[in-house]
């Protein structure tokens, strides 16, 4: 039945008639089975589905649930309306890691536009081509001729590796040393990278907090400099320790010391007070800076030729959009004995939209 039966046909409800006990009983049963939508707070377990056709149903309460699941059928569709132009939302944030194995990266050269350098055979070679045999670790290795151009390369990340609409939490570069070097480079010459983004005409850059790219909002710590709250800095080169720092508290003018660089902590969330006193700054170790941690020895640097990871941590205030920006990695500190295998990006998202 589509709804409750009549207690009796309408023509049997005559004037002056007295309902019988069966009428009362049926009325009682009918009211008992009906849905109390005014008070709610009830659970109904119908033996057959309650089918709402006609003009349908509208849910206007934010706490409606699919506790038992729901399914589309027979042409029924879930349609996202134009009222808020929204997409399905996830009740809690989700994370995902996308890894770009650089074996398929196009060869790109920074600072040298001679055609021969662009040609794959002279640029960054898949490792099997270098070694001529398999199996070998796959990755990009860099010829001495290429590195003579400065040891820096630039990789444009294909759009399919970017989760548009997500916040990037961290980005890591996996690499290894294919032979034991004779010395350890200075901290700023260790393998490192910076993520940046160009617009369509390459006339503007997206700020990716904290932004270490040229002109970005994270500079090298300066003597006697006034820093506003939430400023980002990296230590100066001799003091680079693999982390970046955020001004989480300032007093007075928030001016850094004019004589001494702080002794930077190397544990996330640890703090150091710069220029203690009325105008002090409290710097918090907030994330990895995207460079190999300064090794204590050549052997540590070499790591037995085993994979190593370089990571940059963002502060969670970014939203990536590969429909409007081209994401580019600037990689430095390259040497003939360094092979890069992959780039992994950790994304945080809460909306299911088009990536």
């Amino acid at each position, binding site marked *: 039945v589509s709804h409750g039966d009549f207690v009796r046909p309408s023509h049997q409800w005559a004037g002056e008639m007295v309902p019988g006990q069966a009428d009362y*009983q049926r009325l009682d049963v009918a009211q008992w089975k009906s849905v109390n939508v005014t*008070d709610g707070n009830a659970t109904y377990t119908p033996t057959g589905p309650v*089918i709402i056709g006609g003009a349908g149903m509208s*849910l206007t309460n934010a706490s409606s649930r699919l506790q038992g*699941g729901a399914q589309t059928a027979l042409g029924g569709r879930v349609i996202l309306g134009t*009222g808020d132009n929204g997409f399905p939302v996830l009740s809690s944030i989700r994370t995902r890691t996308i890894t770009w194995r650089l074996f398929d990266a196009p060869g790109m*050269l920074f600072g040298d536009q001679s055609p021969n350098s662009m040609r794959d055979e002279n640029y960054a070679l898949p490792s099997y081509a270098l070694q001529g045999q398999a199996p070998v670790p796959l990755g990009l290795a860099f010829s001495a001729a290429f590195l003579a151009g400065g040891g820096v390369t630039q990789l444009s990340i294909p*759009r399919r590796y970017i989760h548009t609409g997500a916040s990037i939490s961290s980005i890591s570069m996996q690499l290894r040393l294919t032979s034991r070097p004779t010395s350890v480079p200075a901290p700023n010459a260790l393998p490192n990278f910076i993520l940046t983004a160009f617009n*369509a005409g390459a*006339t503007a850059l997206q700020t990716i907090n904290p932004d270490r790219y040229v002109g970005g909002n994270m500079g090298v710590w300066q003597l006697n400099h006034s820093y506003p709250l939430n400023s980002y800095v990296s230590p100066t080169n001799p003091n680079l320790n693999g982390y970046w720092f955020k001004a989480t508290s300032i007093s007075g003018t928030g001016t850094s010391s004019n004589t001494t660089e702080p002794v930077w902590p190397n544990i996330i969330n640890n703090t150091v007070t710069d220029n203690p006193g009325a105008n002090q700054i409290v710097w918090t170790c907030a994330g990895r800076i995207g460079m190999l941690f300064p090794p204590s020895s050549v052997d540590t640097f070499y790591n037995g030729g085993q994979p190593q990871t370089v990571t940059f941590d963002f502060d969670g205030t970014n939203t990536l959009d590969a429909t409007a920006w081209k994401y580019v990695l600037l990689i430095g500190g390259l040497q003939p004995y360094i092979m890069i295998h992959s780039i992994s990006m950790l994304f945080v998202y809460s909306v299911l939209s088009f990536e």
Partner: protein
Amino acid sequence: MTAFARLLADNQYVNGSIPPTIWANGVWFQTLDTNQSKAWNGDVGGTWTSAATLTMAGAGMWCCGPWQISGGGQLINPSSSGVRLTHGDNDYIVLQAGHAGATRTLETSFSLGRDISGSTARMVYSNTYDGLINYQIGGTFVSGARLALPIDVHNGATFSQVVFWFVIGSSHLPQSQPFFRVVKVDGSGNVTPLKSTGLTQAGGWVQLAAANAGAYFAGGVAQSFTYTLDGGVVVDTSAFSYFAEIVDEDGTSAAGGNVYITAVATMTSIPDMRPQ
């Protein structure tokens, strides 16, 4: 008050007698009246604002008419419940006509393009623009530079246009300005141009047509050229790949230095949220 209770037990309704509790006072009728006023009028519809959650378990509920979530309403799939919104009929979540998400642009960097000039490659990476630049080999211009770019598209969308971003390397006016086209290529390598009218040259080619050297160079800033496709080009990535193709400037007064930066494809009429 929750679900309605029985007013009397069945055994109190006896043939030939009316239970005194019905006649003694108006409670039975009043309760019946109150309850029916609180009940759902499934035939006519209406608006109810339940004081507490209404839970439909058992065989569940089917909505065979339109089901709308409005007024800030949400349909929450409880965390860790294992419950799913299941799509039958091979369907997907649909975007209502006019939904902002039904139109989007997709940028593809020319750095991901390929030099298809032939035996003498000359398109090299430009770190300044993250694109490809026509390198002037040994200071001598070599004609015939050509490049192809596999462009990002949205499967199922209507592909309406591509905006090419580029920079002209120096102030001059070549005999032949750059040509642009957009094509689809099937699995057998067959090329189909996606524009058939307003062409400069057969095969879908449209040529830049700057009036003079100043307009052509534009002070060396990034310029854009819009290539509008035929109407009704629906992207089908199951059968085709899509490419932007450029033939760089050539002929008398031609020079190297042009940079092709980005192809921005416009996708419209995206029907649903099928996987890409």
